[in-house]
């Protein structure tokens, strides 16, 4: 099983998720550190992400956009708060305008990732936290809308 534990704190508005991968620590680090690999998993298949800038240093920023089935683009940014290669990183994830500038009226998520070596692989712990319930509502609704188009695409594929 990949995901081994999930803890949700409805007061602190955090999700802590622990996953185990049968790959060495340095390999798992690459899925975060290499934008070409990030693009393969950050967005769902129907909303793939393209990273434009990727300044992978503490305080550095990354910009990306996700392209929907109709060609719609949803822009986002990351700010790397800390990078401790290859053990972990902290970043903020937010929405951006079409020109890539951060949109402060939109919700932001704080993310902390830590990687630990274990027998036969790597354990990844992810903590996502929201500033407010409203942020969480808006963000998950957007994610769900993307999930819905993804599910619809999978059903299509099944039927054709």
């Amino acid at each position, binding site marked *: *099983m*990949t*995901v081994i*534990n*999930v*803890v*949700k*704190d*409805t007061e602190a*508005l955090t*999700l802590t*998720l622990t*996953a185990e*991968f*049968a*790959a060495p620590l340095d*390999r*798992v680090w690459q*899925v975060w550190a290499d934008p070409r*690999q990030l693009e*393969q*998993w*950050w967005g*769902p298949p129907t909303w793939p992400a393209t990273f434009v800038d990727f300044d992978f240093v503490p305080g550095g920023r990354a910009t990306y956009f996700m392209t929907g089935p109709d060609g719609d683009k949803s822009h986002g940014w990351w700010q790397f708060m800390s990078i401790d290669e290859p053990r972990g990183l902290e970043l903020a994830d937010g929405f951006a305008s079409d020109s890539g500038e951060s949109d402060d*009226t939109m919700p932001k998520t704080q993310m902390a990732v830590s990687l630990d070596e274990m027998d036969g692989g790597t354990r990844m712990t*992810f903590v*996502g936290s929201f500033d*407010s*319930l*409203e942020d*969480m*509502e*808006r*963000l*998950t*609704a957007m*994610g*769900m*809308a993307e*999930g*819905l188009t*993804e*599910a619809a695409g999978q059903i299509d594929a099944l039927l054709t």
Partner: protein
Amino acid sequence: MVVEMLSPNVDRVFAALSDATRRDIVERVMHAEESVSSLARRYSMSFAAVQKHVAVLERASLVTKRTSGRERLVTGNVESVRAAAQLLDDYEQIWRGRIDRIAALLGEPAEPSTTHPSNDS
């Protein structure tokens, strides 16, 4: 879950929260009950405008209003706070999708999707 998110009430909730003043009102009254007139003093807009914002929030069930003497008191709706649990579930699903894709990227066989145990605190 997806169907729930698309219910008319959710549309109202998102429409209600699309405005910065209304988000601010919800945050404040979620912490402590506050009168419409006290809220009106916080923003550079007319009493009527603030009253309208409160009405939008009320229709979305994000706040409730009660009368106490001459005051109209606004309180955050606890039910909508309970929705946090549901929202964290949704967020969990987004991340389960990402973890599955990382696993695929690392060349691991896809796991059958089953209900995983979770610890809610």
